[in-house]
């Protein structure tokens, strides 16, 4: 599932973290063999419970963490083998917006400082006026207007929703091709979420490729055309978002969808999976979901199901999916 159409792709990607547990060395298998491509101009959602490896996958695609095995391909080329100038291009073209982008910010930092930071590091503009214009353009895109006024404000004086928009502006200022959003609205109150989603929706229409990482399937349903479902470091289902949500094929996706509450008292959530996500140090053998799966059989404890095309364009990693 990795071809020329993909601006950015993970190819058999593994990211293990070395940790010590009770004095012994162990590996946290955060991402454990993921192949997933981002098609140009298409928005892809990555969903799954916390601990399933979504953020680590995003960071690996940004080359912020080193793969243990496998590779990251930017326009078909392995990013660890890019020339200096190609690498600079990749750095600029792939941007990530973190969950709380200004969590530990210097209190003196202004909006201008934050938005200009990346451009400065890569030396994109040599001229101060040009840099200012780029900053203002980005702020206007996320509707922080008048941009000149917002640029002067301290980050710490902004509301949560405004900060998140500065986070998006900072990525957009680089004029990237791909934007990876990590839980972009999870921390925000309901009444302001929509404004940010709409701002990003407009960037979709100008051809940016988005990857939206979140545990909130309702937002993914709204924002993305394709979705990948992760569980304990593996992709267990991929397909068009509408189809996956309407008729999930993998029992884990089925449990995720049934658990999503809706604002209608006549429809209650159902809990289809028991227990909680196990530790990524020693994932269960066979199918990693088997201890929680309502449909598990003997074979699931022994044999790992591979991601296969169950129906045209629909992939699932379950022995019994059809």
């Amino acid at each position, binding site marked *: 599932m990795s071809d020329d159409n993909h601006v950015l792709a993970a190819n058999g990607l593994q990211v293990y973290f070395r940790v010590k547990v009770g004095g012994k060395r162990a590996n946290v298998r955060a991402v454990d063999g993921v192949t997933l491509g981002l098609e140009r101009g298409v928005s892809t959602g990555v969903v799954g*419970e*916390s601990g399933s490896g979504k953020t680590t996958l995003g960071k690996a695609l940004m080359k912020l963490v080193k793969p243990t095995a496998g590779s990251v391909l930017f326009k078909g080329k392995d990013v660890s083998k890019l020339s200096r100038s190609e690498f600079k291009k990749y750095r600029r073209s792939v941007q990530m917006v973190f969950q709380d982008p200004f969590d530990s910010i210097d209190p003196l930092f202004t909006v201008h400082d934050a938005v200009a930071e990346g451009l400065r590091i890569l030396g994109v503009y040599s001229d101060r006026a040009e840099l200012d214009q780029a900053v203002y353009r980005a702020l206007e895109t996320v509707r922080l207007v008048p941009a000149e006024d917002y640029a002067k404000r301290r980050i710490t004086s902004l*509301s949560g*929703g405004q900060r998140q928009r500065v986070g998006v502006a900072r990525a957009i200022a680089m004029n990237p091709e791909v934007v990876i959003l990590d839980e972009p609205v999870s921390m925000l*109150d*309901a*009444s*302001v*979420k*929509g*404004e940010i*989603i*709409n701002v990003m*929706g407009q960037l979709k229409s100008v051809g940016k490729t988005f990857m939206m990482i979140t*545990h*909130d*399937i*309702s*937002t993914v*349903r*709204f924002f993305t055309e394709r979705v990948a479902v992760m569980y304990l470091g593996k992709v267990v289902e991929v397909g068009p978002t*509408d189809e996956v*949500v309407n008729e999930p094929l993998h029992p884990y996706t089925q*449990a*995720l*969808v*049934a*658990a*999503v*509450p*809706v*604002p*209608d*008292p*006549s*429809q*209650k*959530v*159902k*809990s289809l*999976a*028991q227990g*909680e*996500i196990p530790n990524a140090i020693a994932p269960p053998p066979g199918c990693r979901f088997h201890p929680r799966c309502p449909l598990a059989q003997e074979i699931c404890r022994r044999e790992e199901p591979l991601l296969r095309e169950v129906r045209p364009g629909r992939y699932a990693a379950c022995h019994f999916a059809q």
Partner: protein
Amino acid sequence: MLVSQTRAIGVEGLNVEFYTPRGALRAVNDVSFEVYEGESLGIVGESGSGKTTLASAIIRVLPSNARSWGRVTVYGKDLGSMSESQLNREVRWRVISYVPQASQNALDPLYRVGDQFVETVRAHTDMSEKQVLEKASELLKHVGVDPSKLNSYPWELSGGQKQRVMIALALLLSPKIVILDEPTTAMDTIIQAQILEMFRQLKQFERLTTIFISHDISVIANVADRVGVMYAGRLVEIGPVEDVFGRPLHPYTQGLLRSVPDIRRKDGSFGYIPGSPPDLVNPPSGCPFHPRCSYAVEICRKLMPPMELYAKDHYAACHVISSRKDLGLG
């Protein structure tokens, strides 16, 4: 639904003010409502709207920089007239239990789960240690935790298990009323669904009266019989959950419902309310929602609208409701 006409909780004109370096902050502003025996009242509102402060004021565990006035009654008894020790002996844990926000993180890491049960209720009961542990293991079964976990330390439990333990702990002295503040917030959806399902079963079994607080409308839709909507310290709408979410009357409730992502829908645009909630040290005059409200008229800037009845059991506080034709009222 097993709702009786017995009033379990009455709140009348409740106010809470915090002293802050910037001045007085009115976190709860003239709030009144009732909770009937056997029902679950949901309280929904965005962060900072005063939900936690309201809960702490009811059970009288406000921080020291707060002062409150108004009346809270429990089965007709005025809590304001009780001393702290009387509240501890007669009310807290025995009649009302409170599961505070993020309380699962407050379990003492040095004590086994069983010891926490014993310690917590020591001041409130004559039960022996053995009796407490027997009751605790029975309750843990009801909330879906293996009773052997009484011998575990908190760090050996997952987040979901700890929250279930907190709920079992709240039920230990068989209270009639439980107040739960954001009990599923920050949980993954699958775990949240497990807790919500457990909670529904528990309610049927124990015939509890509950106040269930959440910022998440969809969570409230899963657990509440009636719902109150808070904005800037005020209760702005209250009524049966089907009516408030199905035919909302207040412009804020309407805006909030349009902003909720709904997995069943993929259409139009994602709604939002422009602006952000007001600063409660310097709140807007009149209706606190007026700077964000598209229906606002002159009077809204001057006068706080009173809570009025518009349909069976369905109240809202807004000046324009009776003149709005789109609401299909009478």
